[in-house]
């Protein structure tokens, strides 16, 4: 039964368990409203009529941060998996320099 504790399997078991919990909640809760009531399910826009179409906020800052995340993560994964030989050490130093450039840039 040890296999139940493996991460992916444990995750699926929990998915099922939480799903059951949510089902019990739905049964106990007030019955969901009938869809006839449009205002109830209209998007909340702090009192006014909500927008009905998907619009994306600007992305610029988002990508720069994602790039930073990728570079640091790569360095971390590399250091984690392959121990600390000379080659990885040099590579790490290079990575850190790239990061500093990114921060200053």
């Amino acid at each position, binding site marked *: 039964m040890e296999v139940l504790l493996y991460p992916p399997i444990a995750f699926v078991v929990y998915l099922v368990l939480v799903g059951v919990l949510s089902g019990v909640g739905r049964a106990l809760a007030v019955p969901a409203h009938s869809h006839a009531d449009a205002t109830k399910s209209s998007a909340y826009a702090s009192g006014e009529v909500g*927008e009905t179409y998907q619009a994306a906020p600007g992305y610029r800052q988002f990508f720069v941060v994602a790039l930073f995340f990728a570079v640091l993560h790569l360095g971390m994964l590399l250091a984690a998996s392959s121990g600390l030989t000379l080659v990885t050490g040099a590579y790490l130093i290079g990575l850190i320099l790239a990061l500093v450039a990114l921060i200053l840039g």
Partner: protein
Amino acid sequence: MSTDLVLQKVETLLAGFAKGTAKPEPNRLDLNIDASDLIAAITALRGARWGYLAALTGVDLGKEANQIEALYHLCEGDAIATLRVRVPRAGGAVPSVYALHPNSMFFERELMEMFGVTVTGLADTSHLFLPDGWPDGMYPLLKDTDVKAAAARTMGSEPPEMGRQGDRFIVPIGPQHPALKEPGHFEFAVDGELVTGATVRLGYVHRGIERACEQQNYTQNLYLTERVCGICSHSHANAYVNGVEQLAKVLAPPRAQAIRQLVACLERIHSHFLWLGVAAYEAGFETLLMYSWRDREVVMDVLEQMTGNRVNYSASVLGGVKYDVTAAHAAAIRRAMDTIEERATHYLHVVTTDTSFLARAQGIGVTSTEEADALGLLGPTLRAAGVTRDVRVDAPYGSYQQFPVTASVDSAGDLAARFKVRMLETLESVRVIRAILDGLPEGDLTVKFPRKIPAGETISRFEAPRGELFYYIKSNGTDKPERVKIRTPSICNWIYVLTKAVGSQMADVPPLLAGIDPCFSCNDRMIVVNRHGGDRRIWTREDLRRHASTQTRR
């Protein structure tokens, strides 16, 4: 320079345009101007850098005269120059002075909406206060409009549906939002975190107080004007009472004047502590909200002990004051003032040195002195930008001559400066309260007040915690006022929020909104964008800079 000389200057400047002048009161000068000469007259005054446009009042002169009078009030120190422009009742037109005085846009919108006088050259003409569905052609402040029918038709009309906003990402901060204690609807076009466009729609708290004032007698109006705004209720009541007393030529006894000033200072302390908490909460500093509101309870207890109510304490009546300050009250107030002084100095220290707080308040929404003056800002927002304009100092009313006040000014002009100015004002109020308690004159509390007020008109200016409050009251000899015009400080400060919001981060907008200590219910006036037909930008940063520079260069 004495008031007469200041008014003399106006007379010489406008000699060419004035069809007739009158001096109803020592500090007031009326000049009859034709609609065609209006722009030239105001440009002359603006060129000589004479004063600022305080208010624009519309008065319906009735069916027989078949005329509406638009009064442009300009103030410099304690002198008030009023340009009177008469236009026919139906189809009258007045040129817009918006290019010279940016805050006139709000006054002109109100004139159009309430009186039907068309203002030529105004950028946006849809409703300002009135609800969306208000029938066109019905002007509530004209004497003969059937307001009940208009309201019924508005109730019947179904709300206009939302027009498509183009592909701009608009964040609505609407009538129900944690950042707003009161309803107003803001729309910020946002690119990522940067705000690129800002529009506002108020009118959610418009209750038609000015029309209601005309149907009640003077004493009933006292309780109505007191509830224009809950936080500065004493200021509104006092401005109204000062005006009516000027009309009736009755002076309240000195002890009553001193008690009125005492309650006004206590209200300023409670309003500033309230604002300190709310503005800090908008920036995310919830602990300061809890601490400042806990300390505010000290002042609320004193107010309640003296006047019986924590808010809307209706201390002043026509001709005097309702409550006396006994020795017990004085002792309680002195004890309260010690704690308030100690706490206010602590908050002044926190607001000027706390690093995490300053990261959210320093350098946000910076306004230069010329820009603040050009925009016509009022109150602590203006004084934080280095302009020392305070009605209690420029035009002392009531007992402010005996117990003078010094205006607290800071020149940084950003959000942190506004916190600093308000805390300095709190400390100043503590000093004045102690002076009043020491020198409280003896004498009775009220004086006999006539029921019917002789015909006439007057202007009463009062320094509310948010800025200068402007009341125009016209009486017609009966016991009901002919016209009561209320112009509140927040209306002039709104344009500041929108111009500063454009170009700032979205996260800085709520603190900016709270920075001017807006009181929606005070006035419920602001520019309106007809957002159903796509939004039209009223005022951009470039227009403002160009405008500010043209004014100052000359």
